[in-house]
């Protein structure tokens, strides 16, 4: 090996890695700055009371974003109610219960499912899911928050399964053996030892699942009916709703650059950004609080 060439590499490569690391931070900061620059003027152009009112009808200058926020929230919560039990349950099945050969088949299948474009799933939602819901629940239309929640739940499941399964699988076999040797049953071992040992990974899975749900645009736009109605009652789940993402996607193309409407759409993006930030911070603070430093280092 020529030492001269090595020196050159030693000089160059760490700097390249450093530069790409810093640029990731820089890009996020730039995106945030851009959102702020385009979104904040909305606060000056629309009165705060109007902005957080319940009427979204931009053509007549009604820019109430509350229906959109509640629409996103109800769908996210609904989707999580579907995806969490299914996702974690499937992950436990694959990591702890299923024989090795079955896991080898299931895992790639689940990951394949996770790679399906959401527009394809939205198509299925329109053709299969929403007609079924309309007939089954006797609703005026099947394009409801429920359809969106079910579909998004389905979209989030592969993400949750894949990551939670990795986390469970990474728990050393000796943990399980130790629990069994103490007289724990298989289920007690999973619930009290394996899951807690994998909790940071499982929580990451849940987080990414929520992120996937709240940020999903195409599928929700196709199946939720897109009516900007305030969704506060429990029965709202059976009505059409409109999410923040769908609104931005549907209207951004037709809006005059620099108009009030344009700024409000960016403001919605800002709200979305802040919501996912809160979810992230909340989750990581749970992980960090419940773990002592030594435990974090080892896990």
């Amino acid at each position: 090996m020529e030492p001269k060439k090595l020196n050159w590499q030693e000089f160059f490569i760490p700097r390249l890695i450093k530069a790409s690391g810093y640029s990731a931070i820089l890009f996020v900061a730039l995106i945030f700055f851009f959102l702020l620059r385009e979104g904040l003027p909305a606060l000056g152009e629309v009165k705060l009371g109007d902005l957080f009112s319940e009427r979204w009808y931009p053509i007549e200058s009604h820019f109430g974003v509350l229906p959109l926020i509640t629409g996103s929230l109800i769908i996210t919560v609904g989707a999580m109610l579907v995806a969490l039990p299914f996702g974690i349950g499937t992950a436990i099945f694959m990591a702890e219960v299923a024989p090795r050969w079955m896991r080898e088949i299931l895992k790639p299948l689940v990951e394949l499912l996770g790679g399906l474009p959401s527009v394809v799933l939205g198509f299925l939602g329109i053709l299969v899911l929403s007609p079924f819901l309309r007939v089954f629940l006797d609703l005026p239309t099947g394009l409801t928050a429920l359809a969106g929640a079910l579909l998004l739940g389905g979209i989030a499941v592969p993400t949750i399964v894949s990551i939670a399964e990795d986390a469970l699988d990474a728990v050393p076999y000796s943990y399980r053996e130790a629990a069994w040797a103490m007289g724990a049953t298989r289920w007690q071992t999973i619930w009290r030892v394996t899951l807690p040992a994998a909790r940071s990974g499982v929580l990451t899975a849940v987080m990414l699942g929520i992120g996937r749900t709240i940020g999903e645009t195409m599928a929700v736009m196709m199946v939720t009916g897109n009516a900007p109605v305030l969704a506060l009652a429990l029965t709202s789940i059976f009505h059409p709703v409109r999410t923040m993402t769908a609104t931005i996607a549907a209207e951004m193309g037709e809006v005059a650059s620099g108009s009030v409407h344009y700024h409000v759409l960016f403001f919605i993006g800002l709200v979305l950004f802040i919501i996912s930030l809160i979810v992230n911070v909340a989750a990581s603070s749970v992980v960090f609080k419940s773990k002592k430093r030594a435990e974090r280092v080892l896990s």
Partner: protein
Amino acid sequence: MTLEHVTPEKLMAENKIVIQNLSLQYTDGTESLRDITLNIRANAITVLFGPAGGGKSSLLRCLNRLNDLTEVKVASGKILLDGENILDPKTDVIALRRKVGMVFARPVVLPMSIRQNLTYGLELAGEKRKSRLEEAVERGLKLSALWDEVKNRLDDAAIALSGGQQQRLCLARVLAQQPEVILLDEPTSGLDPISTGKVEAALQELKKDYTLILVPHSVQQAARTADFAAFFLQGELVEYNEGKELFTHPKVKRTEDYIEGRFG
């Protein structure tokens, strides 16, 4: 060692565990242990030693049926614990594992506090009374000589303890369950000499009340701790005798060679 002329009652008076003609196989059919017959005495340390791959750990894992979950299966034979065949499919495995505790080569502390590590097994068994749990924590930690080091921080995460402390915690966890037999699979392999000394000292104390079966991590440890010693070589029980006798006057050439370090 023939058993025919000994009545079962007399057998039990001295032997906690009687292993009769036990053979083990891996699921692919290769042999792990061949026709092992061995009596394990109560209130003594029985050491199973020999080179790696000799089937010691497999034998140990038969005694609490932990083999059920691995790729080693019992081909034939019996293991009598207090006269009952624990290999019988009808055996309550959970109850068996409470009676036969185990300490592993690598200390496995559960992802909980020190206190919870000790009470977990009892809670699984349905014990809810706080006073009993507290009592078990203190008893376990005192018996494993860990009490003085951790009594002021029982609610700290167990994983923050040092390696030696973790291993004694694992021993304490087993003791808190008040088992009758304790299996130790190279319990000191990851420990420094001082920690090893502490664990060995604890074992010498414990044998007054428990039946201990130890797979040591070295011949020296086998010689230091054994009341009875069994030498395993490639799935075969080569020699079994009182520890002193076996390490000073081995009867079989292969045992002698191994003890003196000519192979292994």
